[in-house]
């Protein structure tokens, strides 16, 4: 016999296990403990009355709705390099590049769409961007619309979103 083999005893064959009732009792005990605790002090229950009440635990690392950042002179930071759309696992970033004439770099997006219905909010686009041009630090966690098209964010919408944590401009572009 190979001495490296450890034999684990099988559970469930004792009389106590076969009766099931003790196990059920253990489970129900936990349920009722919470039930009576909550009923006795209803205000201590951790429930958010959304949307009247808004969450307070959105932190800097929270991946909210995307935004496109600006340079200090307010021009777009994105250089249309397609790194974000290459990294995107759901293929939901649609960019069309064009020549840039304002003296910064040579390239910028003519159009930039994110289909937020296809987006899985993984944040890979933010990781991939070499220009700190796309961020998910808007703190926006809820999106509404009355048609599918409402959820396709265009360049202007993405540029209009504000950062929620102080850092407004791209840290990589000047």
């Amino acid at each position, binding site marked *: 016999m190979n001495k490296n083999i450890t034999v684990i005893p099988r559970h469930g064959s004792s009389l106590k296990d076969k009766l099931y009732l003790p196990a059920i009792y253990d489970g129900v005990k936990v349920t009722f403990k919470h039930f009576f605790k909550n009923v006795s002090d209803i205000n201590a229950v951790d429930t958010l009355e959304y949307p009247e009440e808004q969450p307070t635990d959105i932190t800097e690392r929270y991946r909210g709705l995307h935004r496109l950042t600006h340079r200090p002179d307010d021009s777009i930071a994105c250089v249309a390099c*397609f790194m974000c759309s*290459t990294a995107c696992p759901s293929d939901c970033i649609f960019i069309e*590049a064009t020549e840039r004439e304002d003296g910064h*770099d040579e390239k910028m997006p003519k159009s930039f769409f994110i289909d937020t219905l296809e987006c899985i909010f993984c944040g890979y686009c933010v990781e991939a961007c070499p220009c700190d041009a796309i961020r998910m630090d808007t703190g926006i966690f809820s999106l509404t619309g009355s048609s599918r098209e409402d959820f396709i964010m265009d360049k202007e919408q993405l540029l209009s979103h504000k950062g929620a944590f102080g850092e407004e401009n791209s840290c990589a572009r000047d």
Partner: protein
Amino acid sequence: MSEMVEVIVDDQTFHAEKGSLLIDLLIKEKVKVPYFCYHEALGADGNCRMCMVEIEGQKRPQIACDTFIKEGMEVRSKGENIEKVRTNILELELINHPVDCPTCDQAGECSLQNFYMDYGLHDTKITIPEKEKGLKKVDLGSNVILDQERCVLCARCTRFTDKITGTHELGIIGRGDHAKVSTMPGKKLDNPYAMNVVDLCPVGALTSKDFRFSQRVWFLKTVESVCHGCAKGCNIYIDHNKIKYQDDVIYRYRPRRNDEVNGFFICDEGRLSYKGLQENRQHEIVLDNEVISEDEAIEALKDLVKKYKSNITVIIDANLYTEDIEAILNFSKEIEANVCAPLDIYRDEDFKDDMLKSAQRAANYKTIENLSLETKIPEKCELLINFNHPGKFEAERSIDFRTHQDPDAAFILPLASYVESSGHITNEEGITQHCQKALSKNDPLPTVIEWLEKVSV
């Protein structure tokens, strides 16, 4: 034929011609060796120093592009020593390089990027943040844009205009850090093969105005095909892509090496011919200004063929694939029609030159000649069935199969273009070559063969 000798490269033995270039052997045997300035069509220049290898008995590493093969030569292309040399040379190359890969069209097919991944990956020793500045966008002419900062001064582009086209538009001016590629004063890059410098440039210093920023190269799919611009039949790569929710589109043609036909290059007109292929296409079946369905069209066509029985002329375009031409010949036999393929219209003496361009501007005219098809259209002809021939012909009634719109056609049936199907063509030298299907359209149009299968009785 000179003597074949044995050469040892990294413990492998190869046979090569005595006195030939070592780098040619390494390229042929796919031994990995980095190089910028050497190019098989342009020869050695020895300026980039990237192609260093160690040769037994030589004190210092040698450049493979200027080393001639000798009997019993022992070469080392890998190992710590030589890789250190390469890293150092690359570091020199990168001193002034802007490393703006995110905005550079070459990214993904750039030698500098590739070599950096293979041999670089170093921390720079340069501590001054400023790099030598250059112009980022110089329009050299002929659709070629120069970024002086990205240039590695390999002189491939200048040697192309010196040795291949003999037009001498490009030169390198200045010395050291200030050396820059430029056109001669008052001159523009202006020759019918100019855009080849974009492919020759190993980095993103020369980019094509036509392709610039339209796609990142890693999204493109590539198929092998043959240009239909003239009877030369230059080999090309077709780079295409289907963006999500859009249609499959060609973004560029690139030359494909074939020493028997075009060598390394193609002409600019052929390179840009993909554009015309995608514009003004015919999509609907139209009969007397009315869009009709395919079934109605087949019915109408059959009726016409029946009505004009034994007075039908079929006209064949000399750009169609041989397979299509054969299918048309079978169909014509079936309906007892005369067949002709007028060739005069394709002749264009102004297009011809002594490099690649041929005066016969029909890709498959040789097949028409080989099949000895009639090239004169008969005097009297009542029903004319035209398979995409560009000419205009008189007839009582005509049926036009067309890839592109034709406002004069009364009964027009859309046809897939050559990039939307596959087949063979024979070039003017009699070389038969295969073209792969490049595009799979969202709404594919029928090919000649598909149409004929539908209408044959």
